[in-house]
């Protein structure tokens, strides 16, 4: 028997098992953190849904899973001052606060909040607050298919 070989293969198995356990624990921890954030945001959205959307005592629809708390992809339903109300891909209304230093982008250009209009498709990255709103950090205007095929020509280098 080659003791060296046995030692190596057994060590490899032990390392693999330890590695898998670490990976499993890290994944579990990440899942728990993401789940907690989602649950917290969904809870705040539920508590404030009536206030945010009409001032009634109205509970936010249960979709069987937590809401995305840090990013939204969807369509603008309404722009009211520094607030955007948008419909995400699951048709859930969300409130976006555009306060302070927020980057709003369209193709390569920086644009203002006033340049956005109802029905525009946007992607928002931000931070959830305790009112169930998302404080935007980045808003990117997303082109529809026709815009994507014919982007504006950049003449700045000519």
């Amino acid at each position: 028997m080659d003791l060296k070989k046995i030692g190596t293969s057994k060590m490899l198995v032990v390392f693999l098992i330890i590695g898998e356990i670490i990976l499993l624990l890290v994944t579990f921890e990440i899942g728990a953190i993401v789940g907690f954030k989602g649950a917290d945001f969904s809870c705040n959205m539920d508590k404030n849904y009536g206030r945010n959307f009409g001032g009634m005592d109205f509970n936010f629809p249960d979709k069987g899973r937590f809401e995305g708390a840090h990013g939204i992809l969807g369509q603008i339903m309404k722009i009211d001052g520094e607030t955007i109300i948008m419909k995400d891909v699951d048709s859930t209304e969300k409130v976006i606060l555009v306060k302070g230093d927020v980057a709003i982008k369209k193709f390569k250009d920086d644009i203002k909040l006033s340049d956005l209009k109802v029905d525009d498709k946007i992607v928002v990255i931000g931070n959830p607050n305790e009112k169930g709103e998302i404080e935007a950090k980045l808003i990117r205007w997303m082109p529809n298919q026709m815009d994507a095929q014919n982007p504006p020509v950049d003449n700045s280098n000519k």
Partner: protein
Amino acid sequence: MENEYKKLFNNLNEAIPSNDLFEKIVIRIGKEEKLQIVKKRIILFSLFLVASSLGLIYSFLAVQDALVSSGFAQFFSLIFSDFGIVAAYWQNFAFTLLESLPVFALVVSLSMLSLVLGIFNFLLKDIRFVNSNKLIYK
């Protein structure tokens, strides 16, 4: 003339079979039986491979659809269009990606992939077995 032949055949040495002939025949019969089973298994695995490959293609299409409909693809594309801002708010961005990741579709797709690879592995082993036995007993 007939007597001549009789003489000739009487003088010929009798062919004595080797001591392990019986053992060799039994081993050969065993291998032939195994070969037959393996050949049937190859047909079965081939059918499984075709079915699971179709499942894999379908699950990949489902993942592709889920990545777009969940917004993951659009969020991920921000890395290329707005790297500086994404890097500045990397925690929010990482959470966004994790929240929009279509986990179920990915789990199904990866399971299908491992199934296809597993079946392919068994199929290769069986084909190798058939080929190696063909070479030995040609």
